């Protein structure tokens, strides 16, 4: 564990190598990336197992001195970090492998791998940061990595727009985090998590301040994890290559928000208001995004909205004090959502379109992808015995125990929606007859399917580390040795919740089957019920348009107003002054009429003037 800092280092090395020699390496760049991420994967597995037996390990050194304050940098390996290390490096490794097939033939192949390396480095750095400042640093770097990868197809206007949007929207959140961080620093005189928690426990920080900072920090999480109202960038981010979507916008970065809240859980749990906010935002986002997902026709966007909604779930869990539930779902979701994305990628790879209207009947053609996609779908829909089932159940339980009946209901509905639209997706893509031409559709190469298989397996079994039946190993381990968290450990939810959840999701699946599988119910049944509603959903509640009309417009307005000031007020004053001086000169030289007697007169007038002043003041000016 002492050398856990090596884990982020490998990807960094790969980034640097590819940056310098990528052009020469060409496709061979893939091996550099894959091997180095494999290295960090292996290492992080070791660290994880080590961590089972040993206590938390922290080390740090002075990074920057401000007067008497010594800001440190270093790394920490606690349960959460170790787990995250494993998840991130695993998914990253798989995506690296997958991309070798997916990106094959792209002229900027090596650049892609370089960016992947950069991102992985940042993400791993983020999860082992022992203090807020370092977290923030990597937090931003992760954002850049995502920005670069979203804008990978830079010549596409959409990609450009999406990248810009992603960066700025997350930045808005980051500022919240920044403010919270700064305020917290002057409260606790430190950025170290441990010191902060200590200060909070000791009651050095006023309640309102805790709430304020917690919420500000949560805003950061909202930005990164695409929670409402800062969610709009995430669907657009699908402009990036699909593996990127799998890695960044499904498994790792977007989960960073959840991770942040989790790792600062003691702070949040100290303020009921803060927790409530988290829960409400999470719950709302869950149902909100799910409802949008119902009608989208772009395979990746559907997945994107489901991601948003799932992240909402996690927030809800954390918000209702379900620490373990949140983290647990974070893990399982990472697996099955990555799986789904990779599968979707392989589909797109096959049919060269993202519009599900043009797919259909691929089950026979994609012998491997189909089943894997199904596994993922089942998992996310919370069908029993798959990973998603357990984690989702955990969350519902937490919500119920946490005493948020409303949120509990919301979550249930969201679960129903999820099941419905996921299977809608599945049926439209894989069943029925082919819409759109599907000549020379073929299964993806093994280098792409292999990672999917692994994820598939995980998507099935990952849930069993924390189940009501086979023991709650994960839960106990996560909170072990941390009384602050112990209270928020595994919740033994009542059985009816589990049953209810199952029923709901099955209902969703059934309805989807009726409409899109069996076609016994017309597709317009839903949209028919209210065309208005349908269009609203289709346009994602017009949130983007709203922002366009308000924030963007206002910003532009201010800018033009200021330009007005700049050109007329500031410049105007200057012009005025210079003009005045020039005018003075002009009049002066006009008086220079060449009439010698005028000159004498001026002199005399001057004398007279002085004499008059002298006379009036009686000779004494002072």
């Amino acid at each position: 564990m002492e050398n856990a800092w090596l884990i982020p280092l490998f990807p960094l090395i790969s980034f640097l190598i590819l940056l310098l020699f990528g052009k020469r390496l060409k496709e061979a760049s893939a091996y550099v990336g894959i091997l180095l991420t494999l290295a960090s994967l292996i290492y992080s597995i070791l660290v994880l197992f080590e961590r089972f037996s040993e206590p938390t390990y922290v080390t740090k050194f002075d990074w920057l001195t401000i007067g008497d304050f010594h800001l440190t940098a270093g790394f920490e390996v606690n349960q959460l970090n170790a787990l995250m290390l494993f998840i991130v490096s695993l998914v990253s490794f798989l995506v690296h492998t997958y991309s070798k097939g997916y990106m094959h033939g792209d002229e900027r192949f090596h650049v892609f791998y370089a960016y992947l390396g950069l991102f992985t480095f940042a993400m791993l750095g983020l999860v082992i940061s022992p203090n807020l400042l370092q977290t923030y640093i990597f937090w931003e770097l992760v954002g850049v990595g995502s920005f670069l990868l979203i804008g990978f197809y830079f010549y596409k206007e959409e990609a450009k727009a999406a990248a810009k949007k992603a960066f700025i929207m997350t930045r808005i959140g980051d500022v919240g985090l920044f403010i919270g961080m700064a305020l917290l620093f002057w409260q606790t005189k430190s950025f170290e998590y441990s010191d902060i928690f200590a200060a909070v426990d000791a009651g050095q920080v006023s309640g309102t301040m805790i709430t304020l900072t917690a919420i500000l920090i949560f805003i950061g999480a909202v930005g990164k994890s695409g929670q409402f109202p800062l969610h709009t960038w995430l669907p657009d981010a699908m402009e990036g290559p699909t593996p990127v979507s799998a890695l960044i916008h499904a498994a790792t970065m977007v989960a960073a928000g959840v991770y942040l809240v989790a790792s600062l859980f003691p702070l949040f749990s100290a303020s009921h208001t803060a927790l409530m906010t988290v829960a409400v935002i999470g719950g709302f986002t869950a149902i909100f995004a799910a409802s949008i997902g119902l009608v989208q026709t772009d395979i990746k966007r559907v997945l994107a909205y489901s991601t948003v909604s799932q992240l909402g779930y996690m927030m809800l869990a954390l918000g209702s004090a379900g620490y373990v539930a949140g983290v647990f779902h974070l893990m399982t979701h990472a697996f099955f959502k990555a799986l789904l994305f990779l599968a979707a990628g392989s589909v797109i790879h096959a049919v060269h379109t993202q519009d599900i209207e043009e797919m259909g009947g691929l089950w026979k053609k994609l012998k491997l992808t189909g089943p894997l996609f199904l596994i993922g779908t089942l998992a996310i829909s919370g069908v029993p015995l798959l990973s998603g089932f357990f984690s989702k159940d955990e969350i519902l339980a937490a919500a119920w125990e946490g005493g948020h009946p409303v949120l509990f209901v919301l979550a249930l509905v969201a679960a129903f929606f999820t099941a419905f639209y996921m299977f809608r997706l599945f049926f439209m893509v894989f069943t029925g007859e082919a819409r759109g031409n599907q000549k020379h559709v073929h299964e993806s190469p093994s280098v792409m399917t292999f990672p999917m298989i692994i994820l598939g397996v995980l998507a099935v079994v990952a849930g069993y580390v924390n189940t009501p039946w086979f023991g709650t190993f994960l839960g106990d381990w996560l909170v072990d040795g941390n009384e602050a968290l112990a209270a928020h450990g595994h919740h033994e939810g009542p059985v009816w919740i589990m049953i209810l959840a199952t029923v709901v999701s099955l209902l969703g699946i059934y309805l989807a089957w009726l409409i899109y599988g069996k076609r016994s119910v017309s597709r317009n049944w839903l949209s028919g019920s209210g065309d208005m509603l349908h269009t609203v959903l289709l346009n994602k509640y017009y949130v983007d348009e709203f922002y366009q009309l308000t924030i963007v417009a206002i910003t532009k307005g201010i800018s033009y107003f200021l330009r007005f000031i700049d050109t007329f007020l500031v410049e105007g004053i200057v012009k005025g002054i210079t003009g005045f001086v020039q005018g003075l000169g002009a009049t002066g030289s006009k008086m220079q009429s060449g009439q010698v007697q005028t000159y004498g007169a001026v002199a005399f007038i001057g004398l007279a003037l002085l004499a008059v002043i002298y006379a009036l003041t009686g000779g004494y000016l002072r």
Partner: protein
Amino acid sequence: MSFETLSQFNWSVMTPEFIILGVAALLTIMDLFMPKGQDRRILGWIGIAAIAAAMVSVASLAGGAVVSILDDTFRLDSFAIAFKLLLLGGAGLVMFLAVSYEAKDGMEEYRGEFYYLFLTALLGAMFMASSGDLITLFIGLELLSVSSYILAGIRKHNLKSNESAMKYVINGGISTAITLFGMSYVYGLTGSTNLLAIAQSLSGLTDGQHVYLLGLSFLMIFVGLAFKLAAAPFHMWAPDVYQGAPTPVTAFLSVVSKTAGFVIVIRILLTVFGAATTKGPGSMPILLDMQDYIAFIAGATMIIGNVVALKQSNIKRMFAYSSIAHAGYILVALTSLSSNMFYSIWFYLLAYLFMNLGAFAVIQIVTEKNGSAKIADFAGLYRRSPGLAVVMGILLISLAGFPGTAGFIGKLNIFIGAFAGTPHYVLASIMIATTVVSYFYYFGVMTQIFFRPAANEDRFKIPASILVVLIVAVVGSVLFGVMPNIALDFMNNNLDILADFFS
């Protein structure tokens, strides 16, 4: 007064004057008997030699005690020596310009006069510097004025030259009258024309009426003398005269004549009005009482000079206004009446001597080449003659008062005086602000020189005599900008003006 008394006088203190006087007379005679066709430049060189000799003798007189002869009408004190050096130096450089000045428009046959009139003018200025009596002051002043009237009009077939001379005479006459009128009251109140005697009798002044009258006469004298300084309100003749007069004469007026003006102003103001009390012995002297009027004139002068200069298209007119402005700066030093006043005024005049004469040397070359004096004629000077351009650049920078040049140190001196004691914030602010305004026109010339393309590419040939001026000017401006203490310490060690000014 018998021969014995005459012979008892220590005439040696007048050596410099005698030299100039003698040579002036000599030149007159030589000019008379020289064959018509012969080149008169030789006379100019003789004049230069004379000035050099006079300078040496003045320098040799430095450091001694105050000597006053002829019933204290002629006094040789440190003040006189310090400023005579300036006058002689300035006149010397002007003579160099004059020697190479091409004679045309009917001054060909008067070339001889051209030289010895400079000498007589100089003589007048020198007498002003060391006269201890209103009468001698007045005579010196008039000797200077009358000579310069003629000099201004010496190109007798040139309309502009005549016109400028005429204007000069008329304005000069008026100013003289006003000054004299003021002086007459001073005499009336004291019954003496000897400055120290006047000071003596005024130091006990108590009668409010008399104080009042004295105040009026102060204004008259000051305004009248403002003519010589080309300070507001008596500045308006300057542009026309500067433009019309031959360039060496313009240079002479802008430097020597101005210096002389300050000499007489300081003499009269400090001795007469510095001593005159307002409310009986020991009370505030009138001079301090009138400070605000001087300040007022100084401010007006700086503003008018710098602002109107912006609008000029003729380089000589522009320099006329710039010289007005510089007079304003020096008046700031006079206003502040601080203990370093003599240093700042003297040093500034020294710096001004170098930078302005140098600039006029360049102007003379360029104008003679182009036959006109438009600022636009400087376009592309840098391409045509880089050396000349750089020299002009340095001199302009010095005039604008940038560091590394004598002009800057001169301004620093003035500022120290202005802020020490009772600070004159407003006046100093006007000075600095107008200085910034002056960047406009000085750098305007620079843009012509360095940025604009040249009309024609033909080069200049720089006559040796002007080369001397240029070298001296640049070296002076830079040297005294980098090591001002060469001058300051010389003054500090040899000339204790403050001490023997009133003795």
